[in-house]
């Protein structure tokens, strides 16, 4: 993704369009768009080379509120449309904004293949664990027992974890953020942008109308410190207010356990060190759920060649081999031909 630096860098507000934001008052999307504006400004992005693509949903209204190029498409298909955009013009800096229904219900397959192919886009999944726009039905990320208009007695399906899914289908960059973390979220977005290839970012987003407080269990002020672990590559997996808590590998059961430094003989050396390039560790971190701390930040980052570059390389190689301009006449005349004279 190109991010030409300009002398007069754009400010965050310069990335807002002239359209009034129409999310419900108090919706987490307001906070997220602020972080996106900030990240773009920090990156020195240009409006003309930035494209926001979305499907359908509350989250998917995002492009209308950006002063960049934007394409609000159809439900679930933004990854496919974005792939076409990148094939046509790999120079564009493409962001996809999606909801949990858009990305993981109707759009699950396209997301799978976008990530697997490693198309160089940034995919932001606003996970509010509900269908907002269609008025509150449960979604594939809704927790078991969710009461909603379509599940008046509670949902009976096990939810899918967005990040475990992303890792399972071969994503090379997987990260997490929280709507209200105005310092941290832009940094995660900038990491996503820096990663060449498909970057997958799950953002926990509060839907104040249909699923208010869904993430309070680990985002509410009083619990946040103890309920979140912020990942840093190469740093020990410590968390908590005094960074006294940490993650250790339970070797017998091959899983992560939460321990307290200084208790039961636990020392710094017992604590795992975060390695972004380790898919197994990323998988274990992604699977952590309360009462374990929820992993925030970059879970996994291990770049591989991007799809559109590989495609373009094949084209370029073929073209380079041609001694002269490609000649359709010659092509059509290849093989046996004959002349009929009058």
């Amino acid at each position, binding site marked *: 993704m190109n991010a030409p630096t300009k002398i007069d860098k754009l400010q965050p507000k310069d990335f807002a369009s002239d359209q009034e934001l129409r999310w419900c008052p108090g919706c987490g999307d307001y906070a997220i768009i602020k972080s996106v504006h900030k990240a773009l400004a920090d990156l020195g992005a240009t409006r*003309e080379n930035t494209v926001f693509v979305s499907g359908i949903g509350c989250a998917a209204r995002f492009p209308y509120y950006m002063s960049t190029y*934007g394409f609000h498409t159809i439900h679930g298909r933004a990854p496919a449309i974005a*792939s*076409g955009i990148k094939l046509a013009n790999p120079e564009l800096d493409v962001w996809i904004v999606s909801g949990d229904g858009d990305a993981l219900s109707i759009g699950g*397959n396209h997301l799978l293949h976008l990530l697997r192919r490693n198309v160089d886009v940034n995919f932001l999944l606003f996970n509010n664990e509900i269908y907002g726009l269609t008025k509150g039905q449960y979604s594939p990320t809704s927790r078991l027992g969710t009461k909603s208009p379509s599940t008046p007695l509670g949902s009976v399906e096990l939810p899918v974890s967005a990040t475990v899914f992303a890792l399972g289908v071969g994503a090379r960059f997987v990260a997490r953020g929280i709507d209200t973390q105005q310092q941290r979220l832009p940094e995660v977005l900038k990491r996503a942008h820096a990663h060449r290839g498909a970057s997958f970012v799950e953002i926990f987003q509060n839907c104040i109308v249909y699923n208010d407080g869904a993430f309070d269990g680990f985002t509410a002020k009083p619990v946040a410190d103890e309920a979140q672990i912020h990942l840093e590559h190469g740093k020990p997996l410590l968390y908590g207010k005094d960074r006294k808590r940490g993650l250790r590998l339970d070797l017998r059961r091959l899983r992560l356990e939460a321990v307290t430094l200084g208790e039961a003989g636990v020392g710094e050396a017992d604590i795992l060190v975060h390695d972004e390039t380790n898919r197994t560790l990323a998988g274990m971190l992604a699977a952590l759920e309360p009462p374990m701390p929820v992993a925030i930040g970059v879970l996994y980052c291990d770049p591989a060649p991007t799809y559109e570059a590989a495609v373009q390389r094949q084209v370029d190689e073929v073209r380079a081999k041609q001694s002269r301009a490609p000649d*359709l*006449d010659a092509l059509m005349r290849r093989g046996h031909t*004959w002349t009929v004279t009058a």
Partner: protein
Amino acid sequence: MSARAQSTAERIDTTAERRRLESVVVRFAGDSGDGMQLTGTRFTEAVALAGNDLATFPDFPAEIRAPTGTTYGVSAFQINFGAREIRTSGDQPDVLVAMNPAALKVNVRDLRDGGLLVVDTGSFKDRDLKKAGYEQNPLTDGSLKRYQVVEIDISKLTLEAVKATGLSQRDALRCKNMWTLGLVYWMYDRDRKATVDWLTQRFAKRPELAAANIAAVNAGHAFGETAELPGIQGFYVPPASISPGLYRTVTGAEALSWGLVAGTQLAGLKMVFCSYPITPASSVLHALAGMKQFDVLTFQAEDEIAAACAAIGASYAGALGITSSSGPGVALKTEAIGLAIGVELPLVVVNSQRAGPSTGMPTKTEQSDLFQSVWGRNADSPVAVLAARSAGDCFEVAVEAVRLATRFMTPVILLTDGYLANAAEPWRIPEFAKLQPFPVRFHTDTAGFQPFLRDETTLARIWAKPGTPGLEHRIGGLEKDYNTGHISYDPDNHQKMTEVRAAKIRNIANDIPPQIVDQGRPMGRMAVVGWGSTYGPISRAVSNARKRGLDVSHIHLRYLWPMPRNLGELLRGYEQVLVPEMNMGQLKAILRAEYLVPAAGLNKVSGQPFKIAQIEQAIVAGLEG
């Protein structure tokens, strides 16, 4: 005007002793492992080089590799060639070559009474007969007495012919088809040279195979010359009168691919071709995957929806997005096509139709996706619909589809079918330089910009591509304000936008040629109106009927939506309108709805092209009955 074909080879004139034929229909049939398609293709080439006009019909089995000797593993290739203009692959073969009992069983009912039947007795062992489901040997039970049967142990003769090359029995037997081809070459006095050259090149790395196959061709040819078998007789089919030019044989899939490339080149665009494999559409994907030198990217998507969406994304970004599939796959693209209509982006959707409903008969042809193309979307969602009439016509129609899509900022659906895709026909190769370019002009002017500014004439919106400074804008599937392009729920605006979308497509009628009458008078007792691959049989049937003195005309539509602006008036000039279609009456319904003409249908839904006689009978019945 008399025509003469010049090939690199010298032609030996043996015409003196041969019976002259105006045209002949030959069908090669055998097991899928017997190489019948290859045999047919080589024969086609030889016949074309000899200056005949021709048409072919390859008929594959549905299975990838059915067990040898079974009826459902039979593969056939039919060719009609002649000294006159050839318009179909022929109603009935004059000659049937049956390489095994299964091939005989499946094909013999089509052979004309008195036709020549060549069988390889070497493959008529008990086991072979049983596999084909014969209780008794048809060669001996008298069931073939309506035909002129020639029994040859081709297997044995081939083994002998190639013995010198030291091939294994298995490999040696694989040359049977070339032996047969040699024999047929002798029968029709066609030159072996092109085939020999081709074999030499094809097996350059395995010269023993080249040698064996060439030996087989020659042996078959020699057999014809020497063995005085009743029925094996020499014929002469003089060259046809063909417009001068450089020719080749081409399948619809090839011509279509080249046409799409030509179109995008004429428009000055990069092509992003997005598809998901499906029979019989895949061959276009395959052809274009090998054309990267023309700035053609091919994208094999995860499904048809993704393919359509990626194509739309590509068009949004300033390339031409093209997507291709067959009926069931196009059905999946419906919602995405609606988006392209709503955001008014160019898109070409190629539909290689096949027999349905549902999975139907994937390898069989049908033209039953016309309703889906013209009307098969939710909401008022007009698009342009074009159809190609022949393999070669695919080229022109593809160029036209690209032109209309970019000029009118609209999806264009291009209809071909399984028959067109696979059939090869001689084609006068166009010269790219003589085609009229239609370069796209992307919008760059920031003054007064909004994304739905329209051209006054075409009503097309502008095309402003991402990357252009100052034109940043947002589009989407929600209704847009006519003036600003912003989301709008205003009732009057929706009415206006719906109307302008409809008007834009109707307007295309002013940009395309008026409908011409292919044969016959521009008024009269009957018009036979066709579209797509029925061109050949309709054309010949109308010729025949006109020769009988009947007042009938042939009108063949390339533009199915919108229709040419003179069509209504034209049709009203006939007492009867007969619409032969390989469906239950789709064009018929559209003509009736549009023009209130009492169009009547002639409908064939068997997965097989029309026979000339079927149409001719319907014309006669209508006019004389």
